[in-house]
């Protein structure tokens, strides 16, 4: 029994020491990361910033980048909000800000298409072939009604429900928005690991979630399935960023 008591106390000691070490190391290693990140930002072009695909060391560097890189990102954000075509590219709306006015009816066109799968049939989930439309169009472009203050998500939800089209979404609190996982049983990752649903309004792929995009009268909404992270439907985020 004595030896066990000794062992237990040793274990406690080791735990305490390791805790202290971790607590002490945390900020130190963080600083190291920041420095590395800063060095990287200096050497690399602005393209690498905010790269989502980066993992491991890359994400650490991205975490470190946050502080030194803000001044480089800011002009872009400013440019976005100050650019002359602000009307075409609205800033994301906070969910609590959006107020639906049911008295004012607007119109928009909605299209849901997964044509890109037809070009990538070999990587498509074979059991899902039965739900894939022959011409790749899930919902033909149609004029839809909506109310003032409604978002792209509201319109998609209403139209898929009334059309008995399957649609699954999940709300992601981190981005304050809904994320569309699958439409018509065609889900993200069903056609390769870079596949999923993206939306385009008036020819622009917004860089935020669909439930934060408040629609205006006459908007053209397109829900497109990508098999290559947007590159195959003209929604390459790198391209869009440099366009801005």
């Amino acid at each position, binding site marked *: 029994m004595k030896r066990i008591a000794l062992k237990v106390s040793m274990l406690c000691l080791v735990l305490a020491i390791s805790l202290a070490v971790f607590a002490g190391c945390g900020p130190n290693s963080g600083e190291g990361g920041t420095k590395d990140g800063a060095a990287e930002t200096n050497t690399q072009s602005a393209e690498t910033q905010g790269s989502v695909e980066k993992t491991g060391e890359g994400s650490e560097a991205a975490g470190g980048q946050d502080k030194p890189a803000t001044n480089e990102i800011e002009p872009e954000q400013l440019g976005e909000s100050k650019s002359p075509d602000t009307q075409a590219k609205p800033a994301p709306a906070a969910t609590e800000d959006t107020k639906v006015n049911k008295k004012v009816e607007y119109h928009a066109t909605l299209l849901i298409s997964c044509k890109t799968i037809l070009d990538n049939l070999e990587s498509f989930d074979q059991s899902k072939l039965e*739900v894939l439309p022959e011409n790749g169009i899930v919902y033909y472009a149609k004029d839809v009604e909506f109310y003032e203050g409604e978002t792209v998500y509201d319109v998609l939800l209403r139209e898929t429900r009334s059309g008995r089209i399957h*649609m*699954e979404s999940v709300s992601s609190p981190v981005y304050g928005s809904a994320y569309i996982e699958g439409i018509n049983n065609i889900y993200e990752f069903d056609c390769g690991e870079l596949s999923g649903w993206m939306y385009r309004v008036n020819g622009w792929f917004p860089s935020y979630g669909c439930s934060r995009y408040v629609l205006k009268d006459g908007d053209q909404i397109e829900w497109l399935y990508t098999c290559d992270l947007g590159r195959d439907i003209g929604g390459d985020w790198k391209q869009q960023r440099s366009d801005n």
Partner: protein
Amino acid sequence: MKDIFSTYHPIINFTYFVAVILFSMFSMNPVFLGISVVASFAYSIWLNGRGAVKFNLMFIMPMIVTVAILNPLFSHGGVTILGYLGDNPITKESILYGVATGFMLASVILWFSCYNSVMTSDKFIYLFGRIMPAMSLLFSMVLRFVPRFKAQIRQISNAQKCVGRDVSSGTFLQRARCGIKILSVMITWALENSIETADSMRARGYGLRGRTSFSIYRMDSRDRGMLAIISLCILILGMGAVDGWNSMQYFPSVKGLEISGFGLLVYASYFFLCTLPLMLDVKEGIKWKLLSSKI
């Protein structure tokens, strides 16, 4: 009733349960699920008597229902939309998948309850005591823990009743106080007991090199024959699993099962494997009747 299958060599018991539990775990085909649930249900009742019936109905049935209800709340795939919950659809496919998952879980739990009464800890230690002494002792102690804990709780609560601390009577506060007392006694007992077990096993030289242990297991022709039969079944089932016979498509739509010669063979061998212990017992029973009627 004495179980015949338990008298076979531990290797056979162990292989059998590993195979049956693995195939139950990875099969979502309704035919497989049905065979597995029915066979494990019957065998657990055969082994554990009336207590098993109560457990199965009180615990397994609600579990199947819970899983069947929970799955469509979290998984929304499937082409047949029955209704909407919040923004997401409730589909027939995910309900069916939930039911199938419930049956799968039930069959695995039932097989484990059979495993517990057939693979006693001495058999397990006989098989693995040499290869991994610490692990096998730990494993058998863990498996034995819950039943032992239950038996000890009964003993202690009876003893506490004798000194006037009865959990089953008095006000709520009094009963809670007695319950906590019993719990504290139980935890002390469990901790002390585990240390004592470890110490006594060490004192006996458990796990040392060159130390032999007594066992009454012998691999004879009956065991070899049984091992061959089980291996054959596993081989056919393995080939069937590679061919996809143990699964069925639930998403995006439920696809009915095709029937072919090989598929029927796979089903038959799964049925044979799952009901094997029961068939042995029935065969033995018939033989006994015949022999005693001849006297």
